[in-house]
């Protein structure tokens, strides 16, 4: 394929600017997203006594369900519940009150509160991932960023396509640093293109689905989309309440029945994860049990039962579901890395960090290609982009580690005094991030980069120390007791701390020995 030189220039400009604009938000999305892969593990890590408390049984969960339905009339209409299991050892129940606000209750908090229990850290990291931490508007912002990300991938492919085959495995180190970074950027970009394309599409979908559906509804669906949605999204048919009360059914009956039904339909195994119960206690009550069947790209399937009798109403299980349910299950599983065992999660973590690095390297490339080689004085634009990249990207790494450390200190204090843990964690995170950006704005970029990288190394190393000191679960104790979820978070933090230290040393070496006449030299 041969491109006209004007077309090539247009696409290069497009790729550069879309990349720089979206790159910052994408760095945050990928760094926080890599950690969000371990959403459930983070909740156990935050909870001071999670490791000491035995896992709930179905009987414990049944008590919570009975108590919630007795206390909260709104929950009788519609209630959701996590089965206690490997991912969430303690039962959690949630419903919408009369005003439509979601409430979460546990055995320790039967009255219910608006925040899921002991989830402040994982919620913060997740919010950074899908909205950079900005409420409401942030989600749409991330949706637009995902679209720009798609456009950047498209334009990058157009630019690189003519040379794709001969340059794919070329990595040319040497005096021409720009060529080296360009080669690295290209090879990482091409080899991880399927992953990036998947994230761009599913990311845009998750953030913008609602508004796009509202726009497409009159355009192509003759305003019939909303009426079609329940059958598209849910497994259970909607049954209006009969107004007659009857035997409500029990968790253990639903649990056992859903497994029985799934196995009868040819699943090798089925592990119930959560349920949705509509019109509890009514003769027409429906329960929908969603669970995991391993070995499918979309492992989550669902069985809908008559809550009282346990009769099957509908199923959507891997291998036997309609196109919509198969697409939903596999889209979500692909985005969240939930279609395999722990290795897939570990791979998603590494790919997330790799993605973050791709955007970081894109900015470095931007700075490098505008370097004035023959004079000490550098242009304002490269200087400012270097400052912004260092402050926002490395600053985020510092801020996330500070949030981890703050979580342990605040949870420890919360045992003896009344404090708001969730807002404390947010303040620690966004406060330290702002300080890092301020620091990067005031210092020469290369000094700021080195200092912030060392700060990131130290704060990240403090993560396992704070955890051990606050809860007694030092990582060797977690390993000995078989709490691998706790162990791997602490061990991962140590590995990342070494990574940051290595980057800090490399930056210092570049400043001393690299080519002078650059924002990265001293």
């Amino acid at each position, binding site marked *: 394929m041969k491109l006209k030189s004007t077309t090539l220039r247009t696409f290069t400009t497009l790729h550069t600017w879309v990349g720089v604009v979206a790159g910052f938000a994408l760095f945050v999305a990928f760094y926080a997203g890599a950690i969000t892969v371990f959403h459930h593990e983070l909740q156990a890590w935050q909870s001071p006594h999670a490791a000491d408390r035995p896992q709930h049984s179905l009987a414990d969960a049944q008590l919570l369900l009975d108590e919630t339905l007795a206390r909260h009339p709104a929950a009788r209409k519609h209630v959701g519940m996590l089965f206690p299991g490997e991912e969430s050892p303690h039962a959690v129940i949630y419903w919408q009150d009369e005003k439509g606000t979601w409430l979460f209750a546990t055995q320790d908090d039967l009255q219910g509160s608006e925040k899921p229990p002991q989830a402040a850290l994982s919620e913060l990291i997740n919010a950074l991932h899908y909205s950079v931490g900005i409420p409401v508007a942030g989600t749409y912002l991330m949706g637009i960023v995902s*679209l720009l990300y*798609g456009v950047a991938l498209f334009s990058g492919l157009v630019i690189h396509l003519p040379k794709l085959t001969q340059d794919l495995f070329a990595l040319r180190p040497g005096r021409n640093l720009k060529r080296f970074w360009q080669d690295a950027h290209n090879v990482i970009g091409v080899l991880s293109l399927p992953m990036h394309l998947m994230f761009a599409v599913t990311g*845009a979908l998750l953030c913008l689905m609602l508004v796009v559906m509202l726009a*497409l509804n009159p355009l*192509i669906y003759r305003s019939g989309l909303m009426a079609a949605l329940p059958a598209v999204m849910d497994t259970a048919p909607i049954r209006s309440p009969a107004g007659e009360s009857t035997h409500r059914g029990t968790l253990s009956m639903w649990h056992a029945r859903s497994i029985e039904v799934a196995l009868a339909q040819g699943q090798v195994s089925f592990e119930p994860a959560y349920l949705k119960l509509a019109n509890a206690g009514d003769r027409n009550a429906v329960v929908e049990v969603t669970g995991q069947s391993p070995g499918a790209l979309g492992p989550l399937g669902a069985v809908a039962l008559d809550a009282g009798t346990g009769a099957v109403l509908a199923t959507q299980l891997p291998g036997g579901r309609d*196109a919509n349910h198969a*697409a939903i299950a596999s889209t979500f599983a692909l985005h969240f890395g939930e279609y395999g065992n722990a290795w897939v999660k570990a791979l998603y973590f590494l790919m997330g960090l790799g993605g973050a690095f791709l955007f970081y390297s894109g900015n470095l490339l931007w700075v490098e290609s505008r370097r004035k080689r023959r004079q000490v004085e550098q242009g304002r634009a490269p200087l400012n982009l270097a400052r912004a990249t260092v402050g926002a990207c490395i600053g985020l790494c510092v801020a996330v580690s500070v949030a981890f450390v703050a979580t342990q200190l605040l949870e420890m204090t919360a045992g003896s005094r009344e404090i708001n843990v969730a807002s404390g964690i947010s303040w620690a995170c966004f406060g330290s991030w702002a300080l890092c950006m301020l620091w990067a704005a005031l210092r020469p970029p290369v000094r700021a980069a080195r200092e912030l990288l060392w700060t990131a190394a130290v704060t990240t190393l403090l993560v396992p120390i704070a955890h051990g000191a606050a809860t007694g679960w030092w990582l060797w104790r977690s390993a000995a007791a078989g709490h691998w979820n706790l162990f791997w978070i602490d061990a991962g933090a140590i590995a990342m701390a070494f990574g940051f230290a290595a980057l800090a040393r490399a930056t210092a070496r570049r400043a001393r020995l690299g080519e002078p006449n650059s924002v990265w030299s001293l």
Partner: protein
Amino acid sequence: MWARGLAGIFPGFLLSAGLVGILSWLWPGPWQATVVVGLVAFFLVWMCVIGSSFFFANGRRAWAWISGAALLLLGGLWLMQWLHWIE
């Protein structure tokens, strides 16, 4: 640059809607059966349309061609829906 990009975003949205609409209504079976697949495809199509709008030599051409194609596809879809050729 901006004019071409905006052509990809706004008329490009309608063009992508038309493409996905025609495909999902012409597909065998009711359109409701492929709603999610259509939504996922929509984002991919829209991204490619935005990217492709930069192949046009200037903004005016991009707006004219993309708007024209969008009108054609959406018009065709609405006509077929109105005539009940597709369900």
